[in-house]
């Protein structure tokens, strides 16, 4: 059963460190999502597991067997390329048969198996088409079918939904998790789309600059981000910089740049006078009632919820998300004054990042 372990895996390309001492353990049958901005080393990590890139140092184990140095075709792990890499000169059926004939299937048997797999992805009648005749969504499904047909139990998907339109993405998302479940596959799915990761993952791995920032269930990462970057990259947050004015047990009082006072709960030891960053989910900010007075600057209607941008004195901006029901009931007028509150039990406090708040979230 495929269980994947990486031990201190590093990879450099010239002066760029693509991966920096990665340690990772993924269980059998688990659906993991690697989430991270472009250039964070996700593809490199996946290719190292697939055997398409050799690490400079460190080891990879699949099923308890050390596979470092084993060529890709012998790993029983199949990598699906970002833009599918369908073979342009082969038909859909031949594309899918490729992995089978490579494994010693006779042509006839391979073709039969290919048509079975094509049924799984619902492309039965396209067996004799060439890739260029298919739409993006169909190409994606062919690429997936081609991987599934190999019978490999470990599926490495590099941004599999990246090239699809939003609607299709949702559809295929459901499909993916159904197939993974049915065939009992271990899947590592790379994405830079947080909602994809949150909805699919049993385990979420957040990467940045060649390092793993946080791993855990989607809920863990969402509710307990361990850094400003986590809070920024997963979910939507408002970040407020300030100076710690008081520490009273777990309650920390923070004075913002414009003099506004907010409170947060924190287990970490903060000291008075220290710089800190508070992070609050946009949907946790209460609009109507509360100590902060703010003016409504902007409304973004997004269907199921709306994004309201408020301005505190001295231009400090706070974004609050409110559900549709509320948006219909009440009148929100641009320019009007509102009272806001930031619930302290939902506010997470982080040490000031070394490069400042901007450095932490703009470098992305």
């Amino acid at each position, binding site marked *: 059963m495929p269980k994947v372990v990486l031990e201190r895996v590093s990879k450099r390309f010239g002066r760029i460190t693509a991966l920096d001492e990665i340690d990772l353990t993924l269980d059998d049958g688990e659906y993991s999502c690697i989430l991270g901005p472009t250039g964070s080393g996700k593809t490199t990590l996946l290719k190292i597991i697939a055997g398409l890139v050799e690490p400079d140092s460190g080891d990879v184990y699949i099923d308890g067997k050390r596979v470092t140095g084993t060529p890709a075709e012998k790993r029983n792990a199949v990598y699906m390329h970002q833009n599918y890499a369908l073979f342009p*000169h082969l038909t859909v059926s*031949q594309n899918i048969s490729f992995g089978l004939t490579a494994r010693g299937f006779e042509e006839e048997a391979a073709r039969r198996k290919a048509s079975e797999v094509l049924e799984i992805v619902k492309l039965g009648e396209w067996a004799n088409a060439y890739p260029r005749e298919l739409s993006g969504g169909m190409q994606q499904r062919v690429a997936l079918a081609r991987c599934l047909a190999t019978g490999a139990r470990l599926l490495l998907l590099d941004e599999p939904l990246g090239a699809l339109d939003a609607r299709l993405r949702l559809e295929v998302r459901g499909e993916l998790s159904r197939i993974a479940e049915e065939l009992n596959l271990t899947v590592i799915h790379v994405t830079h789309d947080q909602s994809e990761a949150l909805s699919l993952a049993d385990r979420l791995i957040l990467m940045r600059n060649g390092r793993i920032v946080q791993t855990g269930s989607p809920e863990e990462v969402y509710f307990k981000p361990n850094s400003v970057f986590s809070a920024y990259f997963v979910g939507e947050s408002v970040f407020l910089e300030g100076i710690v004015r008081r520490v009273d047990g777990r309650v920390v009082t923070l004075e913002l740049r414009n003099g506004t006072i907010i409170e947060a709960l924190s287990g970490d030891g903060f000291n008075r006078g220290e710089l800190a960053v508070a992070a609050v989910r946009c949907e946790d900010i209460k609009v109507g009632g509360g100590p902060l007075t703010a003016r409504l600057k902007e409304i973004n209607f997004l269907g199921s919820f709306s994004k309201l941008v408020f301005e505190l004195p001295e231009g400090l901006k706070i974004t609050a998300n409110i559900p549709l029901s509320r948006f219909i009931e009440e009148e929100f007028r641009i320019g009007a004054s509102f009272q806001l509150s930031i619930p302290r039990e939902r506010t997470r406090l982080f040490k000031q990042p070394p490069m400042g708040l901007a450095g932490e979230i703009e470098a992305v």
Partner: protein
Amino acid sequence: MPAVEAEKTSRFRGIGRRVISRLDKLSEEKTVAYSLYLASIVFFLGIILLPSLLGILLKLDTAMNVVTNPELLNRSFSAVFSSIIMAGIVSALDVAAGLPLAWIIARKKYRWLNIVDSLVDFPLIVPTVILGYSTLLLWCEETPFSIIGFTGVSPGFITVLLLHFAFSYPVVVRILAGKLMDIEATYEAAARTLGACPFTTARTITIPMLKSGIIASLILSFARSLSETGATIMVAGSFENGPVFIKKSIDAGLVPPMVFVSLVLIVLSILILAGLRLFGFKFRMPFRKAYRIEAALSREGVTRVRDLSAIIIFLFLVLLPACFMVLARMPLMLSYGLLGEIFTLRGAWSTYWISVLNSYVIALLTTLINVVFSLPTAVIITRRKLGGLVSRLLEALSTTSIIMPSVALGVSLSLFWGASGISDFILVLLAHLCITYPYMVATMVSVLEDIPVELEEAGRTLGGTPFKVFRSIVLPIAKYSFLSGVILTFTRSVNETGATLAVSKTFKTVSVLLVEWVKSPDMRVEAGAGTLVLMFLSIILLVIFRYIYTKGGGGLA
């Protein structure tokens, strides 16, 4: 199909399959891959590079004789200079005039253009020396254009230019057309819908994608112009470039000029070609805007004129010289009733048929061996298997044997192998390997450069061994370019004379025989007939080959 036959083919298939699966297994082993790389490098160093250079390296000390003799030194430098200038002009003209024709062939709008496509290989079939003789007849001695008042030019710079253009042009068109066919027309369509006129599209999209092909073309035509000896002497008049000077000195019993001039030519051209590769790949077409003139150049009238002039250039400057010798001798041939005699296998004609057989055996072996050894070399070069430095070095050095004047190469080879007592057959084979190896490597490199690495990765991760990935993905995708590499190698081997003559006096290929006939006054008509037959044979062979290749080899999954 009768049962016995069916059984036979299925047994045949079974064996084929077993061989393939053995190769698959083997290719999985890293040690096998690296042994293959090692073997190809050893082949390159031991069979191609060292023997080509050794004659020069052994006599290196004599080069001083040239340096200390101001007159020889002067002549040497002016010869080198002429060579480089000529090669530069020829390769530039080749690409400028070859690109439009390659385009016509690759994006065929009309069926009749298939004829042009087949005719392009035609001049490659003609032995170069025959082409030289033909050029001389056409432009100087028996020019048919006297009807329109053109009385011919005297042999010199112009005739050499015409000759070099004629023999290198087909190579360039082949490479570029192969490339263009491998580039999907979708990119062009995309650019067109984005509002770019055809000319702008070509400049900003297609030609940049074609870059590796253009560079390969420049390199091959440059090198070929530098090294050709036999035919050049025939049309040179008082013009003297490197090879002509070397040949004259050798005939006068002087070896030092060969050493010195070859050395300078090799060093200079390696530098020039390395520079071309380096800057050529870095060079980007300015992208900024679509110029107004481009729209004008894209108008139908203009493109028609362009296409027409490309075809006219090909017909008059390339195709006509290639067959003029045969045409000019045709009336005599007919009146002697020679054509009937050819198949009688009597007298001179039995020698002829043996030499044809010799040529084809040598060409076949040369092509096979070169495919086997130049592929791993091309993989090392393009995929940086042994690091960037090895790739660069290998690529730069791989052209050495075609930069060298072919006489010098021949002399060098016979010095290297001469003492070993190997048969003339092997000697000729070795010489042909040296001469065609760079063609094969250059085309393979440009093939591999254009295959997206991701397709190979996909093949590997799906469980394909390196050999399976190569045979069912890389090869079919690049089949046109691969085919042109094979054709180039094969035809070049058939029409080679200079080096063949230099390494063996007894083993006669058909080109060598035809050259002898051309030079002896009472065999000139036979020479015409022989050339004609050779052309026919080669055309038939090419057509069969192409048919098998496009029908069979391509689609194997």
